[in-house]
């Protein structure tokens, strides 16, 4: 019987050998009796042909000289090139094997690679050198240590059942100690005795990980080299990896301290405003800093902007919508010298302000309503709560340090274990952690839930956090030390260790329910179930009857299945060897915990003959298949009617210690290096108060420590980066033009003193973003005209970075769409709540679904990665993969086509004309005036008025003459005028003056 059970695996093993024999490049190790190959005869000729041009006596790229064995063993800047005895660990071999070397040439042939591999594996000896020389230096094969085995082989496969959350059979495979301790069946390993180690036995027999669970648990079988490694590790006594941290830090990848020359790593100073000649133009210190630079070039500010132009600028800038004609008229009449300042205050108080400025933050956070990565692009039904949180925070002028604290560590501020007792206000900080849940995450899909994909999610979040909050390109250090900034690779892993107590790649939570898998799969969801009372009532009201229906359907199917199931089991049991049938039957009759050892064994061995797996009945019985398909379809339909339980898409720490965090050599999870503790970039440590973890009762304290560290008032980056972002959105360009890169390769600040002054002022004003708006918008610089800011007027400085004139700006995608809707009276101002659906039209255009109340603002439209709203996409709304700190601005034909021909533009023009007629009646001159006020926030000039009257008149005549053929029943005259005015309005919505401000 035992033979019967293992025949399959034996067969597989034998085939494996057959495969190895025929696969070139996988030649099994030959008996090592022949003399080891020598350097001069076997390797040097090859190096001469392929390598010495760059790594030879003349040139030593990377300080590496391969022309003699001695120099070769010494290595270069990256360390020794060869580890005698292990090609796999030798840089030289890694580089040629990966094809990275020889640079720009064909890779080495398999034969050449094999020659190098054998030479290194056999000790990297000189011709005729005594193998003993090598033996004496090293062990023949480098020891396999716990690093090589735990994370790369065991953690990636086993922890889902034998880890923190579950310890099936009492077994925990997280550490060497816990493996030794073992579980119900005793120690999982006997060091030195692989054959007696259960761990190895079960894996070797292909019982573990259980093949039937491969897909569900997202694991792959253990490969033969891995199995061999595991065997050797145990055989050698399961040695721990000695920490080689010190030696590593001494060469190449140290925590460098060469930050002296990086301006952004120094705490900001508080420079005094300079004295300038044109002091009459100085309204606040901002102007003094700017004028100083302009005057040095013999330049000054442009004349102040026209009053109404400035009003329009303030509206579009702060709320992303133009003023109504009545607001223009009222402001025009307002003679108060403080009228502009009061206007700015009014706009800052507007509920629309958060919708405009929150959107910028959502770009930086990478907000999206879908998971991305996988083609299905599952929606994130709960993400909107984070979007609303951001909008509210901006409207409330939440101090920026608090805003960061909540987003980075909200779950460490509020005890989420007591979720049910919390009020909606109290859960805000939990919602805020959605900031760290916005990266594309396809791990809900079994096919994309392996460790590398999980590491990608973490890396994306590190990128979002570092680029948005710190202006650092820390993600560059994932695979190697940062090439330009003082960010060693270790910093990336320090930083990701901060997230690890929530995002543990070996103890993973999936972002949401998988699409097709049954509920309650092996992976918990990274969601907190929470709803206000009202929300919960609504869900209950909706779901109650549906759930009843589903239960009924399932019960009916079970009833139908019962006889088939019995039949199948009968058939299966007959396949059990006859001699054993009676024993098995007997064993089954005994209760599980009182079975004898033998009975247990029998039941376990014949498991597959005693149970019916899902889908088996359908396969066996056609009658049942049809019935089951019908019922399951009905269940699916019903399930679609279920409302999801209201939840918070939050990030939260999991109880207990996360799995150890290693630096991953070249970013590969199969190659763990040193263990790395949570921490902040090393080069910043010299200029900041220490990163110190104080553990709250229910969480790790890691992110809390990060948020506190970031929020220290004189942090070199936090205030600078945010002040720069605010500046960027007012002037179209930051003082640092690369808002996500304050490193060496970023653009240096055009006005470093001004940036420092703003950063310190920001902190001084209690991190108030609105205070910064007031400061900037009341400056003389902001109030300049934008009349002539072309190259001539700026004396050659590129992109008008010195600001001799307000830089003309194009409405961004959202402001453009929202403004068109508002002008045409179609904007539904309802804020917040679940995202509005979008529709994919037959021609592929993605449009918004609007109600009779109109369309809501763009920030509330569904942002599914695969179906971006065409209007927004065309005007450069970014794809957030993972985030965007600066939008590009394109000028493409599709924009012209979109504004000229799209449904939105055409329909809006007719509505626009309709609203104008409603507002001012039939007088053409008043209509023209109203169009100008609504679209351009100004009165037309005399000649504009003239031209418009003539153009509309001509169109009016045309329609009057031709309308019969269109809609004979309607009043012709008024309809002709309306159509004529629509055409004029349509051109107006396409005009440069409408789109640039």
């Amino acid at each position: 019987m035992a033979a019967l059970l293992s025949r399959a695996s034996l067969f597989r093993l034998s085939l494996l050998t057959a495969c190895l024999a025929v696969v070139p490049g996988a030649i099994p190790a030959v008996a090592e009796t022949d003399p080891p190959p020598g350097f001069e005869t076997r390797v040097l000729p090859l190096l001469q042909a392929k390598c010495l041009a760059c790594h030879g006596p003349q040139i030593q790229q990377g300080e590496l000289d391969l022309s003699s064995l001695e120099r070769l063993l010494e290595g270069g800047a990256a360390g020794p090139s060869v580890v005698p005895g292990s090609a796999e660990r030798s840089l030289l071999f890694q580089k040629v094997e990966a094809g990275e070397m020889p640079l720009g040439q064909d890779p080495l042939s398999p034969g050449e690679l094999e020659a190098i591999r054998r030479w290194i594996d056999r000790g990297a000896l000189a011709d005729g050198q005594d193998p003993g020389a090598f033996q004496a230096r090293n062990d023949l094969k480098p020891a396999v240590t716990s690093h090589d085995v735990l994370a790369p082989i065991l953690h990636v496969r086993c922890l889902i059942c034998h880890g923190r959350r579950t310890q099936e059979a009492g077994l925990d495979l997280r550490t060497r100690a816990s493996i030794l301790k073992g579980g119900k069946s005793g120690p999982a390993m006997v060091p030195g005795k692989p054959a007696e180690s259960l761990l190895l036995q079960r894996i070797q027999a292909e019982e573990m990980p259980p093949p039937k669970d491969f897909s569900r648990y997202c694991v792959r079988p253990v490969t033969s080299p891995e199995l061999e490694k595991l065997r050797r590790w145990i055989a050698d006594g399961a040695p721990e990896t000695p920490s080689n941290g010190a030696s590593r830090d001494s060469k190449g990848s140290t925590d460098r301290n060469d930050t002296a020359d990086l301006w952004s790593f120094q705490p900001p100073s508080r420079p005094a405003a300079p004295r300038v000649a044109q002091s009459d133009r100085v309204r606040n210190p901002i102007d003094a800093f700017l004028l100083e630079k302009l005057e040095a070039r013999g330049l000054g500010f442009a004349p102040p902007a026209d009053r109404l132009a400035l009003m329009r600028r303030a509206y579009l800038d702060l709320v992303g919508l133009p003023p109504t004609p009545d607001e223009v008229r009222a402001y025009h009449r307002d003679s108060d010298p403080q009228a502009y300042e009061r206007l700015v205050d009014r706009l800052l108080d507007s509920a629309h302000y958060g919708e405009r400025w929150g959107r910028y933050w959502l770009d930086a956070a990478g907000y999206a309503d879908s998971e991305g990565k996988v083609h299905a692009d599952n929606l994130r039904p709960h993400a909107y709560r984070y979007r609303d949180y951001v909008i509210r925070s901006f409207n409330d002028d939440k101090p920026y340090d608090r805003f960061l604290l909540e987003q980075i560590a909200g779950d460490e501020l509020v005890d989420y274990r007591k979720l049910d007792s919390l009020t909606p206000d109290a859960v805000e900080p939990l919602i805020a952690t959605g900031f760290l849940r916005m990266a594309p995450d396809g791990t809900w899909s079994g096919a994309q839930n392996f460790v590398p994909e999980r590491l990608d999610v973490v890396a994306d979040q590190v990128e979002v956090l570092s680029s948005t909050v710190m202006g650092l390109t820390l993600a560059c250090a994932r695979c190697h030390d940062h090439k330009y900034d003082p960010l060693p690779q270790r910093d990336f892993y320090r930083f990701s260790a901060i997230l690890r107590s929530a995002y543990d790649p070996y103890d993973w939570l999936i972002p949401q329910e998988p699409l097709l898998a049954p509920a309650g799969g092996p992976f918990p969801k990274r969601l907190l179930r929470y709803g206000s009372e009202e929300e919960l009532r609504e869900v209950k009201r909706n779901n109650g009857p549906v759930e009843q229906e589903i239960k009924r359907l399932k019960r009916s199917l079970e009833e139908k299945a019962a006889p088939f199931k019995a039949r199948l089991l009968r058939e299966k049991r007959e396949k059990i060897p006859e001699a054993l049938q009676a024993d098995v039957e007997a064993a089954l009759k005994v209760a599980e915990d009182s079975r004898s050892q033998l009975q247990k064994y029998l039941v376990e061995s014949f498991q597959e003959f005693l149970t019916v797996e899902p889908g088996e009945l359908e396969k066996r019985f056609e009658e049942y298949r049809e019935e089951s398909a019908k019922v399951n379809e009905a269940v699916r339909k019903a399930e679609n009617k279920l409302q999801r339980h209201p939840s918070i898409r939050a990030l939260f720490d999991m109880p207990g210690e996360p799995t150890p965090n290693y630096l991953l050599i070249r970013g590969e999870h199969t190659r763990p290096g040193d263990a790395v503790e949570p921490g902040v970039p090393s080069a910043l440590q010299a200029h900041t108060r220490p990163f110190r973890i104080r553990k709250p009762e229910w969480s790790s304290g890691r992110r809390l420590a990060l948020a506190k560290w970031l929020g220290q008032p004189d942090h070199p980056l936090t205030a600078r980066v945010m002040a720069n972002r605010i500046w960027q959105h007012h002037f179209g360009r930051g003082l640092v033009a690369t808002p996500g890169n304050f490193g060496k390769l970023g653009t240096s600040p055009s006005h470093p003193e001004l940036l420092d002054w703003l950063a310190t002022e920001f902190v001084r004003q209690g991190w108030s973003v609105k205070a910064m708006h007031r400061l900037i918008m009341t400056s003389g610089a902001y109030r300049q005209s934008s009349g002539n800011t072309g190259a001539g007027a700026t004396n050659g400085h590129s992109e008008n970075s010195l600001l001799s004139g307000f830089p003309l700006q194009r409405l961004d995608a959202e402001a453009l769409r929202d403004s068109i809707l508002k002008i045409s009276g179609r904007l539904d101002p309802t804020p917040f709540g679940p995202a509005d659906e979008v529709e994919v039209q037959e021609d592929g255009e993605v449009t918004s679904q609007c109600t009779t109340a109109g369309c809501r603002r763009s920030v509330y439209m569904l942002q599914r990665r695969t179906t971006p709203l065409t209007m927004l996409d065309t005007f450069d709304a970014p794809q957030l993969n993972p985030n965007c700190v600066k939008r590009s601005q394109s000028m493409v034909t599709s924009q012209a086509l979109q504004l000229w021909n799209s449904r939105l533009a055409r329909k809006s023009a007719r509505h626009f004309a309709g609203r104008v007629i409603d507002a001012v009646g039939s007088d053409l001159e008043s209509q023209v005036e109203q169009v100008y006020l609504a679209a351009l926030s100004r009165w037309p000039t005399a000649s504009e008025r003239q031209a418009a009257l003539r153009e509309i008149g001509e169109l009016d005549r045309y329609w009057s003459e031709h309308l019969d053929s269109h809609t004979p029943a309607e009043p012709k005259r008024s309809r002709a005028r309306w159509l004529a005015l629509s055409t004029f309005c349509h051109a107006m919505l396409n005009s440069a003056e409408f789109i640039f401000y």
Partner: protein
Amino acid sequence: MRSGNQARLGSTLPSRESAESGAPLPSRRELFSSLGNGFVGGALAYLLGRDLLSAQPLPADSGQAPDLKPRRPHFEPRAKSVIHLFMNGGPSQIDLFDPKPMLKKYEGQPPGRDLTNDVEQIASVGTLMPSPFEFQKRGRCGMEISEMLPFLSRKVDDIALVRSMFTKHFNHEPAIFLMQSGRTIVGRPSLGSWVVYGLGSENQNLPAYVVLDDPKMLPVNGLQNWQAGWLPPVYQGTRLKSEGSPLLNLKPKEEFPTPVLNMARSILTRLDGDHLHRHPGQPELQARITNYELAARMQIAASDALDLSQESPATHEMYGLNDEATASYGRRCLMARRLVERGVRMVQLYIEEQIWDQHSDLAGGLRYACGKTDKPVHALLTDLKQRGLWDSTLVVWGGEFGRLPLSQHPDKKAGRDHGPPGFSVWLAGAGIKGGTVYGATDELGHRAVENPVSVHDLHATILHLLGMNHRDLVYRREGRNERLTDEYPARVVNGILA
């Protein structure tokens, strides 16, 4: 240069003077026919778009606005245009391009641990399975090709077959991203975007990078396949539809009488002219006006390029337009030829979602996929040759991975699971040494072992044929020089070059 061109074309658009002086507005027909002096045809549209445009150097970190002006490559190019026949889904090399007689010997045996490790859907894995199709030596070169590709079999002396491709992921999404953009993740610029970023376009009246997707269904990864990522959006692929209006919003959704449309244009011209006058020295504003003019020109140029009624009945027949099975792909192949003829730099053809993805019913699925594409592809190669476009057009045929030598769902009609470690692609046309077989997989057809070619190698080779060095085609972003091949090692596959 460009401004001269604009001036000439612009002068035929309704001008401010004519509108203000109240002169009768030209009809739309007059307007557009005057563009081409009464001629309507590819050659003329091509000339209009390309004349007077001299080559510009590659875009550098100059801060200048991104555009599609033709640019000089790094060195003398072999190819001017690329037609990428992207066969998403994972065409089975074992059944189409890469005969493996050894599989007969191992037929029915279960896979070893290591082969199992490459299986995507482990639950359904079967046993080693030889191809049910016959291979025969074809052409003068004697390349062995499956009987499933009878048309391509006649062209083997013109193609270079790479049998040693490999990739890094066994799921469609990441593997397609890798093939399209050099990384398995979303968000990076696509190959086509890099090409037009590097070279611009020879025809300013048509998009530089055209995507012809299957009207039946978008491919996996949808619109993200031809994204420009963080390259300026002007380099994004433009989806031209092979049925109905070719370009989104190319025409208004409702018909307007010509005089109304002309007046609308004239009003806009006046408004923008006045605005430009008040804001002199603003290149963006001028560019915007040009943009509206280009939109108007594109209306004819795109419609004309995709108007297959201009082709002869013989051509229709050759591309299989009269046969339901081949008509859809045939139309797009023919459109691709018409587009490169007009100077479009990059044309990419996609195929309905998972046509090559035979997890089950291998034979039936391949019959369908080959039946749909084989004849049109043959016609395209033939047609490029007979029209003198062969030496300037590179054709690339291939998917994101291949398939495993194992059966899948052996209980039903068996298929094959995804096979990343080894697959085949072929290239033809400009700069390609026809009749070449390059590289090899192991004896099971599982893993590329001889002269393996990575996706980055393929990209480097395509760029090389277009006259660009993949290491020098860089875009500066947040202070860093980004490349299509990123930091990966990549080499030009010289063995397939003529």
